[in-house]
């Protein structure tokens, strides 16, 4: 029972982070700023869902596997964000600046 409650709490927190990540993705002004919520919030959201699943499962082997998945996720989401940012820089896309909007 307690275990179920902890699982629900962690999964809800994870879902909340996903919601925030998507909100940020929609609100940010340009491609670089959009990378921030999508690389950070989604990683933490997925990690906290996995913590919830680990608590629910309770078996040592499953927990070890979930930890491996988390490490992979930390590596892959950062690399993915880096790849998108790099290609944007290589295409000479100018980053959005605050002052430009005020001048218009």
């Amino acid at each position, binding site marked *: 029972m307690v275990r179920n409650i902890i699982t629900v709490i962690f999964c809800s927190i994870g879902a909340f*982070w996903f919601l*925030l990540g998507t*909100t*940020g993705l929609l*609100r*940010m*002004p*340009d491609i*670089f*700023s959009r*990378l*921030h*919520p999508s*690389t*950070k*919030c989604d*990683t*933490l959201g997925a*990690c906290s869902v996995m913590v919830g699943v680990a608590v629910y499962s309770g078996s040592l*082997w*499953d927990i*070890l*596997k979930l930890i*491996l998945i988390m*490490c992979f996720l*930390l*590596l892959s*989401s*950062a*690399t993915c*964000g*880096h790849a998108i*940012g*790099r290609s*944007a*820089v*290589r295409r000479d896309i100018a*980053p*959005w*600046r*605050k002052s430009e909007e005020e001048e218009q």
Partner: protein
Amino acid sequence: MDRGFVFRRKLLLFAVLFLFWIVLTATLAANDIVLGAISSALVAGITMLLFGQALDDRFTPRVLLKLPWFILRLIWEIIKANIDVAKIILNPKLPVDPRIVQYRTYLPDDLPRTFFADSITLTPGTVTVDIEDNLLSVHCLCPYHEEGLAGLESLVAWLFGVKPDD
């Protein structure tokens, strides 16, 4: 390369692969362990033959032991980063002032720099967008996010046992 060094690299790769095998098979039965040991040893030997190196040279047993503590510290930084970014996202005014800053790092070689770039991407309002030799282009969401970079750099330096003046 002397024999002892080659053997130690093989042994390290073998240990990493074998641990990975045990976690994935999720049993401690004798036949699984033996099969895992044989295949790990084969892969370690063949890797050394094909590539002349097993794992990155910077990847030593000491780094492997420090890695869990490093990941815990990093996750703590990520949680702080997320709360910070969440506040910006939920603020109706969207107080962002993004800019790309150049950061020159003292970290040597590919592996520490990769770790540093990945850590930057995962922490407060910063994304590494390009790297050339030791010059990183970092996109910051707000100007004050740039201040976190030095602390992160010293964390990665600690992981690989690198001194700033190297």
